[in-house]
């Protein structure tokens, strides 16, 4: 009985190694072990054909995926964002804004001023990014697709506890820009800096909504 168990166990172990035997990714010792087993158990060779079939189908399934990647420039532009230069610039501005609002002014005035600072700050960052991406040149507003890009996509209300820096980072991370506000109810209109796909728009707005510590509400604009 124990002999049969051992035999079954050895068979299962060999069976488990076969995918890597077929792909040539077994080390020398296991390769020798599999080959010895196959010599004594030729019925197991049938598995090799099944595995080859599975591999062919897996490769075909992967190669059928043919994406059209956006230019690497957008990604390269993002490499500058969280790293030292942008971060220290960001920290500097956020600190300056914090200092500015240390003075004991009425809450509503502080909030309105903070919102204005956010708008200026985010716009400055976006302009800087565009200049970097466009290699220092500029484009006029008649560029194709720019009208759709300019349209607000949502109205966002921020929590009372949200700091200027947190709001700025959130908008920047999700490539959003404040375009109007504060509107009745404390909402601000936002639009995307770039032209994301509908799925991507949904993903980014969901990411904004998920930040309950910063965002009170998000309403779609269109």
């Amino acid at each position, binding site marked *: 009985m124990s002999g049969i168990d051992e035999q079954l166990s050895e068979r*299962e*172990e060999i*069976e*488990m*190694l076969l*995918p*890597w035997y077929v*792909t*040539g*990714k*077994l*080390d020398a010792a296991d390769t020798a072990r599999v080959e010895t087993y196959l010599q004594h158990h030729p019925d197991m060779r*049938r*598995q090799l054909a*099944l*595995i080859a*079939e*599975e*591999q*062919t*189908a*897996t*490769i*075909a*399934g*992967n190669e*059928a*995926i043919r*994406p059209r*990647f*956006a230019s*690497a420039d957008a*990604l*390269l532009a*993002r*490499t500058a964002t*969280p*790293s030292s230069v942008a971060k220290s610039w960001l920290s500097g501005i956020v600190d300056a804004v914090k200092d500015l609002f240390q003075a004991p002014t009425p809450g509503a005035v502080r909030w309105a001023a903070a919102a204005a600072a956010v708008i200026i700050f985010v716009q400055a960052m976006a302009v800087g990014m565009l200049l970097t991406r466009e290699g220092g040149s500029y484009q006029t507003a008649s560029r194709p697709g720019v009208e759709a890009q300019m349209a607000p996509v949502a109205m966002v209300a921020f929590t009372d506890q949200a700091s200027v820096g947190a709001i700025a980072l959130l908008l920047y991370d999700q490539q959003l820009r404040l375009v109007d506000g504060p509107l009745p109810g404390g909402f601000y209109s936002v639009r995307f800096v770039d032209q*994301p*796909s509908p*799925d*991507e728009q949904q*993903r980014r707005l969901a990411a904004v909504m998920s930040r309950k510590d910063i965002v009170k509400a998000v309403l779609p604009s269109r």
Partner: protein
Amino acid sequence: MQDQTDDRTLITRIAGQDQAALRALLGRHQLRVYRFVLRIVRREAVAEEVTNEVFLEAWRNAGSYEARSSVGTWLLSIAHNRAVSTLRRRREETIDEESAGAIADDGDDPEVVAQKLDKAEAMRRCIAALSAEHRTIIDLVYYHEKSINEVSEILNIPLNTVKTRMFYARKKLSELLAAAGIDRGWP
């Protein structure tokens, strides 16, 4: 081997904030990483963003790359972590269950499906219908041609788990094929 040396040179240059090196790394690995991620998250826009995040993480952490594994394996390991956490965040695991019934979704019984599809197509569809866990290991072994050690590193699971997971993924695949009217005589 030459490719691996070149990849490591690229990582060294990326650690020095060389954007041209990152562009070259993208050229070499972006497609494979994207395919790997897409087969996990299943949504193109999400896969594209996760792929971007993988290369941004590589950019930020290139200095800590220790060359214990190939750059391709390192990138897939980052990709797996990112894809799985994205999937968890979006609670899309239910999609796997939906897609597990993908063959039945055709509204045909298995025999009819088998008649409609050639065996290779049925096989591709059944692989796509596996759970994310099983599909991922099948992809890593068959498409990315990773060794047991490399799969263990990418998925962060023990070596024996790699072997058993692959075994059960293949078994499940055979069951799905059998349900589609294709009996392979195994298991």
